[in-house]
């Protein structure tokens, strides 16, 4: 279980860091294996900051993040990233355009799988690609610009799967994708959770959170305003902010005028 307890992040801003801004204020929630937790909030609510802290790209100012009761700061980074990996919003800037896209696998091999023979490595890649429903011929040996956004995002998820990770931080991973392909990436996350993966799904789009997640965390200005089972949060929101947010979501079959 990945657990956040009283996690706070204060940024220093302004010239010479004279002022401070609290981006995340005592956030606490947990992600169990085989569960998708969506973290919903508007821009500036601190949702990406939480994702980055879980990925250890930022250090919390206060509070602890732990996996199965062990503080993540006590784990070596090499071991930690075997358990937790992230995928980010923009698939095109996640890759270096001058190298082939499958280099992300090669880089992983250099760090974690040095002793693995070529044949075993190839079959490992093939099974990871199979898990994200990509065919090896379609994506290997290609440059990033030759692949679609959905394919690139799935390659990054496949890369994370090679490490047998336990938790995945998915920060707006489908915001850049088209409507007809984004649902495939979402369904992929749903498949992965059946394999026991815990997913932190960060999004500003409430409809996506509603579709994929078991539990929902609603953030407002760095504070958690609502936290609970997705059905409960969406059907009986308790906090005024959540209600306002839900009322603003454009719905396909109801118009705003009719709803109010």
């Amino acid at each position, binding site marked *: 279980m990945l657990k956040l307890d009283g996690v706070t992040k204060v940024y220093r801003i302004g010239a010479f860091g004279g002022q401070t801004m609290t981006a995340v204020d005592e956030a606490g929630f947990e992600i169990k294996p085989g569960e998708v937790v969506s973290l919903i909030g508007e821009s500036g609510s601190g949702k990406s900051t939480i994702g980055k802290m879980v990925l250890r790209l930022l250090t919390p100012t206060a509070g602890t993040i732990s996996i199965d009761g062990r503080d993540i700061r006590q784990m070596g980074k090499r071991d930690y990233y075997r358990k937790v990996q992230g995928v980010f919003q923009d698939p095109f800037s996640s890759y270096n355009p001058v190298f082939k896209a499958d280099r992300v696998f090669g880089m992983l091999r250099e760090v974690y799988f040095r002793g693995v023979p070529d044949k075993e490595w190839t079959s490992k890649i093939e099974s990871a690609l199979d898990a994200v429903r990509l065919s090896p011929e379609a994506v290997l040996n290609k440059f990033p610009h030759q692949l679609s956004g959905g394919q690139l995002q799935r390659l990054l998820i496949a890369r994370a799967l090679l490490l047998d990770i336990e938790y995945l931080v998915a920060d707006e991973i489908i915001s850049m994708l*088209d409507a007809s*392909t984004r649902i495939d990436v979402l369904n992929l996350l749903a498949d992965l959770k059946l394999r026991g993966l815990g997913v932190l799904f960060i999004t500003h789009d409430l409809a996506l959170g*509603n579709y994929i997640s078991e539990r929902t965390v609603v953030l407002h200005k760095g504070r958690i305003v609502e936290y609970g089972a997705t059905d409960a949060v969406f059907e009986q929101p308790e906090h005024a902010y959540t209600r306002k947010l839900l009322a603003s979501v454009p719905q*396909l079959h109801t118009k705003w005028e009719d709803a109010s």
Partner: protein
Amino acid sequence: MTLEVDDLRVYYRTLKGDVQALDGVSFGVKDGEILGLAGESGCGKTTLGKALIRLDGRMKHVGGSVTLDDQVLPIGDDVKMNPYRFKQVSLIPQYSMSAMNPTRKIGRMVRELLDSRKVKLDLDELHNRLDLVELPREVLGKYPIELSGGMKQRMVMVISTLLNPSLLIADEITSALDVSTQKAVVTTLKGFRDRGFVKSMLFITHDISLTNQLADTIMVMYAGKLAEKAPAGVVVNAPKHPYTQLLISSLPEVGVRYADKRLTGIPGNPPSLLNPVPGCRFRDRCPLAFDKCAEEPPPVEVEKDHVVACWKAA
């Protein structure tokens, strides 16, 4: 009819040849109508919006005509198009955060902008419109950097519509905004139309649920061609084109319990528009495709105001 577009073709020049981004699109927009233009990336919706106001250097007007208020717009000619811009056709840019001149106070910038069009500033009217979008009049004495993102967006909306253009083009103006701001922007745009500040509007977005909140008519494009055009409610509830049907059914919604229910996407990718094969451009991904799809389906009015370009729908 405010706007009549007839068989418009705009290609992009590239080293490998012409990309047929907009390939024979015809439609009309009536007085007071808001047309929502929806489609995935690369379907030609932005190209269409740009073609109506300014072609950039890579774009080439290949054929077709655009008529606005019974005048033919010289869209291929950058200089001749100038008298129409801002007065007849206006644009709200996607990044309004950076659309204003950072070195001028906003009031002065507006005056300079109007001077360049040889129009005198009607200060009362400007004040009225600021009141309408709930901006304090003091913003005119401020620099853009002193305004918040939402205020800048509203300011740009006021400036764009100041000369009561016949046609307003809003290209993806809400995609960078939060849901609550999105709602405010859409409501303001509707207000502009209701008060007659703009005669008609082209609202371009990839988000069909949002378009449905605002638009009277929705036009769905696919790979540079019109797929379906119908009143908003019809597109959302009873689409006829297989692409629209699949697209609508792939959208997750708030207020629905999914549990273990799965939605499905559309397999495959849109075709390359560099030398596309003739025939229906959706046929490789279409579950209903049959022999006749090798011929290009013409847009047919299957019901009143409901145009579909598909052999199966006609």
